[in-house]
């Protein structure tokens, strides 16, 4: 990187990333590397809402145990996604923050962090009522972010969300 001329940063030419494009990349431009991690983190956090629901109906402790691990893993993957988002900007692949989706995902992450602590309680009250409420809220926020295309930034090449 240090050998590059400052006026020609490595990420300015979309063709450099041809090999990283998905099937639709040709139409929409650069794929931002953070997006799939946002999706993966969201899947884990939404799955925790499902396991919370199973715990609520069955009171079988293993479901609440799954929830605690899913939330922890979801938070770690989301943290990785945010780091990759920064990399997308540093590498000049992303042009502009998608403010709405960004707030949705960050709010879901903060709620899930709180939820990780709620889930560290013992037995029933680790889930009911606050834990499952937080899981439901972050699920709603993440699904809205999903409807908006998961990406937290616009791609520099075309301005599209992906």
């Amino acid at each position, binding site marked *: 990187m240090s050998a590059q001329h400052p006026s020609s940063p490595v990420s300015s030419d979309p063709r450099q990333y041809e090999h990283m494009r998905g099937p639709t990349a040709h139409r929409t431009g650069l794929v931002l590397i953070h997006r799939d991690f946002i999706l993966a983190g969201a899947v884990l956090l939404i799955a925790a809402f499902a396991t919370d629901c199973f715990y609520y109906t069955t009171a079988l402790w293993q479901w609440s145990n799954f929830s605690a691990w899913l939330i922890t893993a979801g938070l770690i993957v989301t943290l990785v996604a945010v780091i990759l988002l920064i990399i997308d900007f540093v590498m000049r692949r992303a042009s502009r923050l998608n403010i709405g989706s960004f707030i949705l995902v960050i709010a879901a992450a903060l709620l899930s962090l709180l939820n990780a*602590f709620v889930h560290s309680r013992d037995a029933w009250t680790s889930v009911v009522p606050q834990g499952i409420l937080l899981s439901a809220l972050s699920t709603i926020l993440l699904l809205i972010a999903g409807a908006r295309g998961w990406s937290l930034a616009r791609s520099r090449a075309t301005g599209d969300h992906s």
Partner: protein
Amino acid sequence: MKATFLRLPTTLIAMLALAACGSSGGDSARQYGANPYLPAPHQYLLPPMSVPEAVGWKARERPSVSAGLKVEALASGFEHPRTLYALPNGDILVVESNSPGTEAFRPKDFIAGKIKARAGAAEKGGNRITLLREAGGDGKPALRTIFIDHLYSPYGIVLVGDTLYVANTDAILAFKYVPGMTQITEPGVKLTDLPAGPIDHHWTKSMTASADGSKLYVGVGSNSNITENGIDVEAGRAAIYEVDRVTGAKRIYATGTRNPTGLAFEPKTQQLFAVVNERDEIGPDLVPDYLTSIREGGFYGWPYSYWGDHVDVRVHPQRPDLVAQATKPDYALSSHVAPLSLLFTEGQHLSPDFTGGAFISEHGSWDRSPLNGYQVIFLSFVDGRPVGKPIPVVTGFLGADNETVRGRPVGLALDGNGALLVADDVGNTVWRVSATRPGS
């Protein structure tokens, strides 16, 4: 959307406020006796841990004792000494032991385990029993041998006739004992299995024998704090068992005792008593650990309720039918002190203050601020019932800053000269507490 966004910060602030309040415990003295102060329970966001760092004893440092008493190290260099037992010939047995190790199930378990290790809780136990033979009067033991080796997280120990019973975490073993023996190499014969793995959260199996020697009583702790490992794994746990000494047949004698870590018969009435460690994480002043008489068939609340009919909302489904039957314990020792050993005395020991009652060791709190316990107390008994306030006998296990811990008291025994012996599983020492004036 707008409603959701308004709601988020409100929820966050409300929950953080909930987490912040009620984090400091009040005066422990409000929780001594038959009617302890019981505040409203709290639900925490961060597990309320407050663990002093284990630093051990420096040269010449020792616990403090009340006026008229003196303390010295009888022996040290043990591997996590827990229970002490005085044999009829005056020999002292030191059970060196610790948990067989539990699996971390949840993200929380990893972190909580690391923090508790700070206070020396994770040290490896010796899985053996050491014999000490005291020289006449004060001073170091004249003899020290490994009495029984290769045990499996042993804790309870009792001699009946010529048989020595050792309660490993998973079984009671019987050893043939001849007075004067300094070593047993023959493997023990299994009398009966005890509830143990795969979780074995509260692993200690306290044990005592009835006066006629026909029955053994064994304390089995719960497999969780408050059923967070599921209700199925609590079958046969949080209970006191009666074991027939001849046949090994066992039955549940009492239930609902979360972790009955010390069992003993009151000498005048021959009534069975237990010290019990109550539940955590609903407040610095909840729930008081207690001393109670154990009635056959009695239910003492865990997990559904505490101190009688105070329902614990963390358990689901709840059992109002059982809560209605729950027995209130006799005497609260205040919250999170972790009583581990119960030693009755007959007549006067050490000083006129300690006449007819029980010594209780308090291993010390790990989830209360300010710290509580970390001492040996004496409690007077009148007509077979605990009365009055506890008298601190051996203190000073914490450093002066209350941030470090030099030792933690566990096992208690009276030696042949009437001195009180205290096992210390952080200092890895056995302390000997005696009267400054002989014969007093």
